[in-house]
């Protein structure tokens, strides 16, 4: 056997991109289980169908670009995108909604830019926002959680997805929606008036968030990402909520706990904001990036039109990430001060 001639280093660590992606997939499992428990099989069906579409889109794009399919498909990044987008979609979404969303994610946001690693915007969130502004009716139709409404069964979930015309969705405003719409009530009244509120936030929502928090912590432990971005985001949301919360009227936007445990906060903090490709790269940059996302989330939730602002906040900050990178270069060994920027 001829001796190989390669550059150092010759040893390689245990990490691989595929493993990173698989870990992320694994870490969503607790969240998905809790979602399924509270909202029925809708999300599961979403995810299954989403994965099929995602892999097809990815394969199509690769084919068109003349790339080897196997090599790229096995990195699992399309699956991650599909999982994350489908978790964010309302359960019992019709199949075409999911297909359009995934196509926007994989084709528009990812492969137009050259595929994995090159996309400046978070594909899942692009898909989500495209759907949200294009099909607001379907996108605001959240099912009521277990204990508030009836849960459809698995067959009904499949029916909702693939023959949507025959499915009569029961929908209910999400707690964030309710909070957003009512600015004249006392928070306590709101709580007692609306069935969807639970102990700290919405029924079901609080547990979903806690499950995603757990998954995220596991990823942190696995060193898939660093704590900087998620912690900065959660901290800034909590801080703003604490400052503006006067414990009285719902106009003040709800308590820190309410914000931390509703909507997509935890899911966003640990699975979306941490998307390495589209976030800032340096640690300092990630702090800034996460914190600004937190600020935007809070501001848009409380003052804007969109009750759950994570997707928009993430897109806006994706946009700013290269700029942040430019100014948050770490101080290199042996340099006086950070050498960033010009």
């Amino acid at each position, binding site marked *: 056997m001829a001796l190989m001639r390669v550059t150092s280093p010759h040893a390689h660590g245990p990490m691989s991109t595929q493993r990173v992606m698989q870990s992320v997939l694994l870490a969503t499992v607790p969240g998905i289980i809790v979602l399924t428990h509270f909202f029925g099989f809708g999300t599961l069906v979403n995810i299954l169908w989403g994965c099929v579409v995602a892999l097809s889109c990815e394969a199509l794009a690769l084919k068109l*670009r003349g790339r080897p399919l196997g090599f790229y498909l096995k990195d699992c990044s399309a699956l991650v995108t599909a999982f994350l987008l489908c978790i964010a979609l309302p359960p019992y979404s019709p199949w075409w909604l999911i297909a359009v969303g995934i196509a926007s994610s994989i084709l*528009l*946001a990812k*492969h*137009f*830019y*050259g*595929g994995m690693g*090159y996309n*400046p*915007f978070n594909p899942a969130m*692009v898909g989500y*926002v*495209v759907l949200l*502004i294009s099909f607001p009716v379907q996108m605001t139709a959240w099912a009521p959680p277990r204990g508030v409404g009836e849960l459809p069964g698995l067959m009904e979930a499949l029916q909702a997805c693939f023959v949507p015309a025959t499915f009569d969705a029961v929908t209910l405003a999400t707690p964030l929606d309710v909070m957003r719409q009512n600015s004249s009530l006392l928070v306590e009244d709101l709580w007692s008036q609306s069935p969807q509120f639970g102990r700290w936030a919405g029924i079901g929502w609080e547990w979903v968030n806690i499950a995603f928090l757990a998954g995220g912590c596991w990823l942190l432990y696995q060193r898939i990402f660093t704590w900087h971005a998620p912690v900065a985001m959660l901290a800034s949301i909590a801080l703003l909520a604490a400052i503006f919360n006067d414990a009285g009227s719902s106009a003040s936007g709800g308590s820190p706990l309410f914000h931390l445990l509703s909507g997509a906060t935890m899911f966003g903090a640990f699975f979306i904001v941490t998307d390495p490709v589209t976030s800032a790269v340096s640690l300092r940059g990630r702090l800034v990036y996460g914190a600004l996302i937190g600020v*935007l989330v809070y*501001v*848009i939730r409380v*003052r*804007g*039109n*969109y009750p759950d*602002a994570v*997707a*928009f*906040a993430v*897109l*806006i900050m*994706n*946009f*700013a990430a*290269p*700029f942040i*990178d*430019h100014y948050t270069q770490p101080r290199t060994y042996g340099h006086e001060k950070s050498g960033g920027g*010009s």
Partner: protein
Amino acid sequence: MLADYSVLLIGAILVNNFVLVQFLGLCPFMGVSNKLETAMGMSMATTFVLTLASACSNLTYHFLLLPLGLGYLKTIAFILVIAVVVQFTEMVVRKTSPLLYRVLGVYLPLITTNCAVLGVALLNINKDHSFLQALFYGFGAAVGFSLVLVLFAAMRERLAVADVPQPFKGAAIGMITAGLMSLGFMGFAGLV
């Protein structure tokens, strides 16, 4: 009072961002965003000229055209005012600070055909802004323009080394990126 002005500012910078939502000043936005450095220069130059032109055109309208009943001459009058402001700025900068001129000089002439400048002047009239409001609105518009221009330039620098498919390279992916940015900016709807 103060709140009014800050609403005006935030409205112009984020919610109704001139570039991404109102579609004004797109040519320089696409044309001068290949490098962060040049984008910075363009931003500074535009901010200065836009604010000044907004105020000056407002004065011209209210103290020259309106009293004379010449509202319909606003387009041509404003374009003259803008050209004068640009030229004047260039002269002043060149005279007083050669250093600044080196940074801004090349961008100043480009601003005359930036429709954001004329757009601001016209919008001021549509919205019946007072002089102060016009000043703030112009400044807000300029900051909004600068913000997205600079962020966009930083992003394009990154795109330049991305593996973008051949037909998408250059302007096409720039446009699509601007579209996705505008998608994000839709999130600001309703803030003010």
